[in-house]
């Protein structure tokens, strides 16, 4: 009995500490206000948090910033690699370097008419590496469990992820794709865990807004688009270009709509995830900014309470968005490979 109570108490303590850490670190690095010369600018703070950057700023001071490598490609100079610390002098002021200037998170060439493509390991790319490494380490460990103990009950990390894998398989992929689900299961599992981990890691203190970046969600949406259209069968294309059961005259309207629909599906995937995650971050940061705008204890207290609440909702949203993205991807693939059913109508 006592043990149970202690256990519960310990859990409660953990949750409290975790929430506090999340709030403290998400809190607006009060110094951000100083950077703008005294006047606190919430939109700058928020943009700084949800946009990409060439350095990873944890806290102010000498060791507080991780300068990430800049990789540039231009037709005249070829590939250039250098540290983003070159854009800062010893007083942390932005300086020009090697014919480039660093402006609002973008590296621009000084010379007129030059174009440069930025392949830098930005904060989001670094976070991407972290996410990928974490996924590979975790799921190889899970797979090892199955190799070591075939036909036995799961153990350790394996038992943590098995229900989730089985959930994705049985409740997302199978009902939407049907009997041929096995071909698409690996992609959809990767998708689910990539988004879920990205969302959860994005809520961590100092984290990058990875899954709230339109490039990241866009690439995943395009991959789903490719999977969908490359697996599309005769029925699917027939439905798009020659919608059955529609009078000939109406086909001039329906077919363009169907063709647009092929492209709106991935676009909706891309925008949904990007908006849900970015909006969550913006809400939390705005509420925290309130404290620095009003500079009042009362507002601080109220804001903190609401932020705790929103953070818990964000944890939920992180999971729901991973579920929704995977579910819609499965649905689109399922519709593309569905067998012909028209004769039943």
């Amino acid at each position, binding site marked *: 009995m006592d043990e149970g109570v202690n256990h519960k108490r310990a859990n409660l303590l953990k949750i409290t500490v975790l929430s506090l850490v999340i709030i403290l670190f998400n809190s607006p690095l009060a110094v951000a206000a100083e950077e703008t010369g005294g006047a606190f600018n919430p939109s700058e703070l928020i943009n700084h948090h949800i946009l990409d950057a060439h350095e990873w700023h944890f806290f102010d001071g000498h060791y507080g910033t991780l300068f990430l490598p800049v990789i540039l490609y231009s037709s005249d100079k070829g590939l250039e690699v250098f540290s983003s610390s070159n854009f800062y002098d010893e007083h942390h002021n932005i300086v020009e370097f090697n014919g480039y200037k660093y402006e609002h998170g973008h590296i621009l060439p000084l010379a007129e008419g030059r174009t440069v493509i930025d392949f830098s390991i930005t904060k989001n790319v670094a976070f991407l590496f972290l996410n990928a490494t974490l996924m590979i380490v975790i799921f190889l460990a899970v*797979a090892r469990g199955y190799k070591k103990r075939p036909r036995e009950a799961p153990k350790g990390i394996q038992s943590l992820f098995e229900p989730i894998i089985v959930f994705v398989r049985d409740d997302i992929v199978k009902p939407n794709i049907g009997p041929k689900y096995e071909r698409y299961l690996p992609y959809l599992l990767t998708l689910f865990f990539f988004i879920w981990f990205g969302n959860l890691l994005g809520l961590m203190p100092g984290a990058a807004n990875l899954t709230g970046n339109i490039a990241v969600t866009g690439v995943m949406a395009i991959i789903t688009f490719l999977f969908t259209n490359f697996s599309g069968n005769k029925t699917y294309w027939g439905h798009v270009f020659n919608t059955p059961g529609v009078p000939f005259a109406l086909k001039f309207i329906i077919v363009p709509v169907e063709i647009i629909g092929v492209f709106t599906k991935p676009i909706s995937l891309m925008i949904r995830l990007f908006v849900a995650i*970015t909006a969550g971050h913006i809400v939390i940061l705005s509420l925290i900014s309130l404290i620095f705008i009003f500079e009042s204890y009362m507002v601080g207290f109220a804001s903190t309470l609401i932020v705790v609440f929103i953070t818990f909702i964000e944890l939920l949203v992180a999971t729901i968005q991973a579920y929704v993205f995977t579910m819609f991807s499965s649905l689109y693939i399922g519709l593309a490979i569905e067998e012909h059913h028209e004769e039943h109508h």
Partner: protein
Amino acid sequence: MELLTPGIGLIFWQTVIFIIVFIVLLTFAWRPIADALKAREGFINDALKSAELAKEEMAQLKEDNELLLEDARKERDHILKEALAAANRIKEEAKADTSKIAEKMIADAKSSIENEKKAALAEVQNLVAEISLDIAEKVLRKNLSGDKAQKALVDEYIKDLKVN
């Protein structure tokens, strides 16, 4: 607006990393995990099914045993009945035999008695005849010694006869 314009660098890295993660996990995680899960589910299903089957077999066996027992019981009853009947029959037969034998014995005894009687009578007759002859002889020997004497003699012999 910057929020809505995807950076080429990030698109590039996201594509590369996502595909690498996908291929690595496909080969070393998802396929083995999916196969293992399937194998385990199959194994569990089979185990459950065979347990169910064993249960059914057990029930069948029990039923069979009961039937066998029932049969055995019937057989026993039947045998007992037959044995009882046989015993009774034997008893009856024995009784009948005994009375027959007894009757036969009685009959034998009677017939032998009859025979003995007949033999005895024959003997008596012979004896009477002998005695008569003897008497006749004696009478004949003494026939000359008067009627009276003869008569007395005959009476005497007859008396002897009666005694016998």
